[in-house]
């Protein structure tokens, strides 16, 4: 509860706008030069992290995805209680004919 008061005072500071504490970096007592630290973090940690994950996804795609599963007409899936208000009313908004079977099976 006391922490809540401290947090709200931190957020509601009037004359001196402060940035919200970021993960793990909250107590760095840098006055001027804060921008330099965050710029460094951007180009040394954050963006390389994104690049590594991009590489990871690329390699996984190269490896070949699963073959699409055989169609089994389960009653708890592909529910059509009410028509969709677009098209023929039978396809979801992001319908993909290759990966999304209709209640009667794959289209292709």
């Amino acid at each position, binding site marked *: 509860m006391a922490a809540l008061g401290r947090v709200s005072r931190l957020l*509601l500071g009037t004359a001196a706008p402060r*940035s919200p504490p970021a993960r793990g970096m909250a107590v760095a007592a840098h006055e001027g030069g*804060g*921008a330099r630290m965050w710029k460094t973090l951007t180009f040394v940690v954050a963006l390389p992290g994104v690049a590594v994950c991009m590489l990871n996804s690329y390699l996984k795609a190269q490896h070949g995805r699963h073959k699409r599963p055989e169609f089994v007409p389960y009653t708890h899936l592909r529910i059509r209680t009410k028509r969709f*208000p677009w098209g023929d009313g039978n396809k*979801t908004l*992001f319908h993909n004919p290759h990966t*999304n079977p209709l209640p009667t099976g794959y289209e292709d």
Partner: protein
Amino acid sequence: MTHQAHSYHMVDPSPWPILGAAAALLTTSGLAMWFHYNSPYLVIIGLLSTALVMLQWWRDIIRESTFQGHHTPTVQKGLRYGMVLFITSEAFFFLGFFWAFFHSSLAPTPELGGQWPPVGIQPLDPMDVPLLNTAILLASGVTVTWAHHSIMEASRKQAVHALTLTVLLGFYFTGLQAMEYYEAPFSIADGVYGSTFFVATGFHGLHVIIGSTFLLVCLLRLIKYHFTSNHHFGFEAAAWYWHFVDVVWLFLYMTIYWWGS
């Protein structure tokens, strides 16, 4: 010439609140017309009028603050309270969808095959694009903080670079999620798995789009010299909202994508 003897902003009469309410009515009744009577015209008018009200209301706030100087520290404090309360309400909004997810996934019913994910559902690999999306949002949290410090230190060029990077990362996330939605082997109609997945991640995606738009507006204002190193609450509000969106994603990732797979 009269002067006010207080530091509050007595706003001039404005049509936007009532027109905004009317727009909301058009949108909601339009949804009913679309879903039940197959007519999309009312919802289109509703969405258009909502957008127009938002554009003009916020334009007026920028006029009142940046150009007319009505946003004293007292006014700013009220705006801070307002943004905090709004984000808190959004947190509760998402809490509901997380509740729904755990309600269905902690005790999967016999209809689902007594397991989670249900029989016949092939969940997305959490170590693939979802992990990339996590890195993207975390990185954007770093870049928006860089932008904030740059604004406070009056480093204009750095602030523009940092905020541009943030907006680009936001758009990258949205693009990747759209692609994931299209490629997913399951849909929203695939029982309670599909419902919880797409409603929770879908509302999150909508908030990413809203947050990216808010940040983009801040970028345009930054370029047009609206912010000072001491007074840039619009930017702070956008940054708070963006961090909130990031945190919601982290919870989504850990629960629905990872634990739920």
